[in-house]
């Protein structure tokens, strides 16, 4: 299956340190790919390079065969690549509904493409799917932790993006919330969304991922199906900090 999003030789250095070092990675359409690796492996930096929040020093990113590297983040977002952040970055002083409505309005001008009713309906669907309908009028800053996580997901859902890049979206969730979260991701994939997930909780990775890429010190060390990657003792030693 041809990749929807392809990275080739993607590199980013901070001073003398290569945070991402020549990474080749393909995201196949309609599956969940998990990025795993120890802290400092370059996972979030890789997301930042894809979304334009950082400019690569070398390498390329292609969306369905078209080069998108070095574009501004808002251009890349409008191409249908949505992301979440580890620290969520909600619009804290806006209501839950406005957070989600904002995600349906890509233009920065005084008017928006598409009909107002359609955008509003999409926002309401995202609120319903994430169980936030009853909290729609609350300020985002007043939400409980799990609700904030779901709001972050509702914003992505409301964008209508084809590719979701999720940075530790399930960390800190209680078991019930985690089950809701997993169901939401499976529904999205069933609707044709392609997901790339950074996750430290290997139970979630095993439960959700169709494919795993293992990163360490900026380099991709391995890529394959979850059973193969997670059974590799060398990778396990690196992951759990037991390298020689």
């Amino acid at each position, binding site marked *: 299956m041809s990749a929807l999003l392809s990275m080739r030789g993607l590199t980013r250095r901070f001073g003398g340190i290569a945070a991402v070092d020549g990474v080749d990675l393909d995201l196949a359409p309609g599956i969940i790919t998990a990025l795993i690796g120890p802290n400092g492996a370059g996972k979030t930096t890789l997301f930042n390079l894809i*979304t*334009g*929040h950082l400019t690569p020093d070398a390498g390329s990113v292609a969306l369905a065969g078209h080069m998108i590297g070095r574009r*501004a*983040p*808002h251009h890349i*977002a*409008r191409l249908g690549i*949505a*992301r979440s*952040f580890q620290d969520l*970055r*909600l*619009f*804290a*002083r*806006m209501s839950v509904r*406005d*957070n989600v*409505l*904002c*995600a349906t*309005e*890509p*233009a*920065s*001008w*005084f*008017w*928006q493409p598409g009909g107002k009713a359609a955008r509003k309906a999409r926002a309401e669907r995202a609120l319903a799917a994430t169980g936030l309908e009853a909290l729609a009028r609350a300020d985002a800053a*007043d939400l409980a932790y799990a609700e904030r996580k779901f709001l972050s997901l509702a*914003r992505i859902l409301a*964008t209508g993006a084809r590719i979701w890049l999720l940075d530790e979206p399930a960390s800190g969730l209680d078991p019930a919330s985690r089950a809701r979260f997993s169901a939401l991701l499976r529904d999205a994939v069933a609707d044709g969304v392609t997901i790339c997930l950074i996750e430290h909780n290997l139970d979630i990775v095993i439960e959700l991922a169709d494919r795993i890429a293992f990163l360490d010190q900026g380099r991709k060390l391995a890529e394959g199906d979850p059973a193969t990657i997670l059974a590799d003792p060398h990778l396990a030693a690196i992951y759990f900090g037991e390298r020689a």
Partner: protein
Amino acid sequence: MIAYLLNLAQLAAIFGLLSVSLNILIGYGGIFSVAHAVFFGLGAYAGAHVALDLAPDILLAALAAALIAGVFSALLALPALRVRGEYFVIASLGLQMLATTVFTEASDVTGGLGGLVGIPPPTLFGVSLADPLVFLLVCLGALALALAVVRLLMRGSFGRALMALRDSESAAEALGKNVPLLKTLAVLLGGAGAGIAGALFAFQEAFVNVESFTLDQSVLIMAMVIIGGAGTLAGPLIGTVLLLALPAALTFIPGLPPTDIGAVQQLIYGLAMTLLMIFRPAGLAGRRAGQR
């Protein structure tokens, strides 16, 4: 006494418009500018020149002031908007210092320290607006229009986008918001509003000089927004009325020598700002600390 109160009410409406325009930047866009008096000044000089050199038509003067202040604000802000947060505050401070010098030195245009004098009373399509009550109604009309525009914009997608970048620029970008464009539009709108306030001020005073457009004035406008409640519709108005009424009220305190009013005023401002930041950091019209 009535003339004094009418004068105070006119000033309150003009400064209300000024703080409402700054609120677009500070309250909704999270863009902390300490150069708003520059655009107030540009509008005042533009309005004064229209009145002195063309015709004292208030609509013509307001349009010219909005255009000049709006365009200059966007042009001057473009390089400064590339920097974030506190760096923009410093950049705007530099702009304020630069503009004060230019206003003082460019005497061919601004009249220098002597200013522009003899600005004729305003008219509208040939009808005189010289009566203080009529002029007050015009100022209140401009303020009401500005409030309506801000309310409309902030309830729509533009306002949501602006508030989104205030709360998190990177998340706003990740949702497709063009942050430099949004900031430029906010600065342009805020600058245009300040320009209109400047034109009204020129007619109200019948005289403009650089002393009305200094850093002190920028800080006063910022204090009006923050004390009242940045990011709320009513906040800047509350702040404006309080900060304009305070010096006026002090003059009525028996036994307080007029020479001490300035010092007492500074003490009250300082104390009020400190207490407010502790107990009500979102301003008088904003939410209380810890309020859900």
